[in-house]
């Protein structure tokens, strides 16, 4: 599946833009304001509900004892993961799951932060109110389908049909000037996260070439007639909403392909990304950021994801390996932003459906509520 990845991106990289192409893609605008104003957000969504209790473990004696007594057989360290000692800014000791070995050094460099207890709330609530059912809680807590939507929508009932990154992109649209490159791009298929009221979500599979194979013909006039007809077919107003939406997806692909083909990537990044799925997604993020002078973009949001975190059983090794994949990819992205000289302009963070229960159920854990997330970047 990913065999064509690098080849296709080399193709983008070797393409060079014409002057006419540049102005269409807002390069003049980029030159005018310079790229020093660039900022990007990168979301890494951990699908399934990451058990963050085993990602960051308390080490002060009382807290660790409490953790150990509730976690039982799942308490770290166990046979799967070792613990990497760190300390909070006030000196409180914690430890990282050693699946995070590659990014652990970022903690000491103040480039990595844990944000505790991130989750949806309708209103402040006590444990007593929650158990007694006397306060309103978010809609359908503990349900994957609903909480994935709520976390991406950024509200506790998942309503509105837009994602919070899409709405952020709506709000900063003017900062992207006349650029027509999509401001919110998913590397992991269509994502509600990226859909705004104005801004449409776009997606790219890493390295994928968006060329339609069936449009060539001999002579050129025959190919031109096909292209013309396809354009007409895709813009014909059928009056049917879903048909128009399906047509728009193909139009977006044609537009996006035109943009990517005409971009000038410059020298390829020397940072090596892992050959994992998440590693390749983050590499594509870095490569699009690298194109910022050509795209003319000043504010961008990216969505990547990794699945498999719904660890009802067999959690220990499974979670360790998933964290390792995320960590290795994160480190590469961090290095790439340093290589591009914009490490202080790209903020990356994790999200997940929800946290998981502290008490184990067999060799795994059940669906929970709030969780610890990571943010990393430089000041």
């Amino acid at each position, binding site marked *: 599946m990913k065999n064509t990845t690098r080849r296709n991106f080399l193709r983008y990289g070797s393409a060079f833009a014409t002057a006419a192409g540049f102005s269409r893609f807002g390069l003049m605008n980029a030159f005018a304001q310079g790229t020093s104003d660039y900022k990007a957000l990168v979301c890494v969504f951990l699908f399934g509900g990451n058990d963050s209790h085993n990602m960051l473990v308390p080490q002060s004696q009382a807290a660790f004892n409490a953790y150990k007594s509730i976690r039982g057989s799942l308490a770290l360290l166990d046979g799967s993961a070792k613990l990497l000692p760190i300390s909070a800014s006030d000196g409180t000791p914690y430890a990282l799951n050693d699946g995070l070995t590659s990014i652990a050094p970022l903690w000491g460099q103040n480039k990595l932060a844990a944000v505790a207890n991130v989750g949806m709330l309708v209103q402040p609530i006590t444990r007593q109110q929650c158990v007694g059912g006397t306060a309103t809680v978010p809609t359908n807590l503990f349900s994957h389908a609903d909480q994935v939507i709520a976390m991406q929508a950024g509200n506790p009932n998942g309503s509105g049909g837009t994602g919070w990154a899409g709405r952020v992109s709506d709000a900063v649209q003017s900062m992207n000037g006349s650029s027509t490159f999509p401001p919110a791009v998913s590397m992991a*298929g269509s994502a509600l996260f990226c859909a705004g009221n104005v801004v449409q979500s776009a997606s*790219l599979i890493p390295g994928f070439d968006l060329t339609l194979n*069936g449009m060539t013909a001999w002579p050129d006039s025959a190919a031109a007639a096909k292209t013309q007809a396809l354009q007409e077919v895709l813009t014909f107003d059928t009056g*049917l909403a879903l048909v128009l*939406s399906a047509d728009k997806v193909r139009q977006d692909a044609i537009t996006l392909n035109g943009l990517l083909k005409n971009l000038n990537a410059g020298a390829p990044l020397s940072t090596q990304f892992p050959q994992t799925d998440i590693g390749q997604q983050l590499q594509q993020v870095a490569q699009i950021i690298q194109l910022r002078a050509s795209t003319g973009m000043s504010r961008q949001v990216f969505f990547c994801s990794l699945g498999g975190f719904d660890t009802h059983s067999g959690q220990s090794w499974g979670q360790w390996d998933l964290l390792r994949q995320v960590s290795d990819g994160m480190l590469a992205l961090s290095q790439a932003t340093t290589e591009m000289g914009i490490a202080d302009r790209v903020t990356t963070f994790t999200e997940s459906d929800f946290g998981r229960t502290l008490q184990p159920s067999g060799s795994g854990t059940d669906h929970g509520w709030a969780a610890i997330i990571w943010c990393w970047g430089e000041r």
Partner: protein
Amino acid sequence: MNISPARACIGLNMLNLDGSQKLDAHGNPIPTYDQATVHQVALALTGWIYKNNAWEDFTGPLQPNDANHDMTQKTLLGCTLPANQTTVQDMNGYLDCLFNHPNVGPFISTRLIRSMVTSNPSAGYIRRVASIFNNNGSGARGDLRAVITAILTDPEARNDAAPPASGRLRDSIYNLVSFVRQLGGSITPDNGLPYLFAQMGQDPLTPPSVFSFYSPLYHDPKSKLFGPEFQIYTPTESVLRANFFWEFISNNPPTDVTLDFSSFVAVAGNIPQLIDAVDQALLYGRMPQPVRQSLANAIAAQQDNASRTQTALYLTALSGLYAVQY
């Protein structure tokens, strides 16, 4: 206790017969169950062990072992399972209770209509089908043959003048397999196509979550209508799918696919006849006149009958009119 299974049968909130949510006095949805119910169901389902009590022996069904079963009384979803029932009796009691829950009719009917006819059925359509689920006319509940018949013969499914919100996006497997079938072709049973579907987010028999390949709650971001299949249909997938079509249509179809275009090529000298043939095969004869004209212009520019046929089929397959079943 994994809390996901019951959601797949009755959903999370109490429903009216027409699929709309019941609301409490404050206008809020009413949950179908709470954590206490989950606990009671967990107790009812205790006592099941692997085949021959061999850990993770998946070669046969689970076996009941009453020594491991909770024998207390359970109350769940409005039902009572009396004390001292066996493992099997409690399981059957739970399944009967779940099956008779009033949500099952509208919940399952909505899912089936979305999967077969339209992503945005009217309340009346759901109510008509759910009524048949509840009673097939002869007093039987859950007669799926009657339910499917009701879904496919409903006026809303047979409406030739499609209302603006009607239809459902074909997912990639459905889109490509129906293309081959509509053209009278065939695909060998041991075909090598799954990896091409996997590229489009639909690895056959390998969905990424308990919700299969896309969430039943997904909304098409452009129209804001329900459009579950749009979750795995973005610019990238649209191109992959288009290129898959081209492999079928061009002279190099995948080795496991047999397609014969000779009947189209035979009429390709006559543009209206060619378009009619493609329209009948793929769009049920409903291709709008402006689209026919666009196709005719492109076909006329091609140099031979094979290219003309390919152009007609390809442009039609790429149209939203074909991507969406309506």
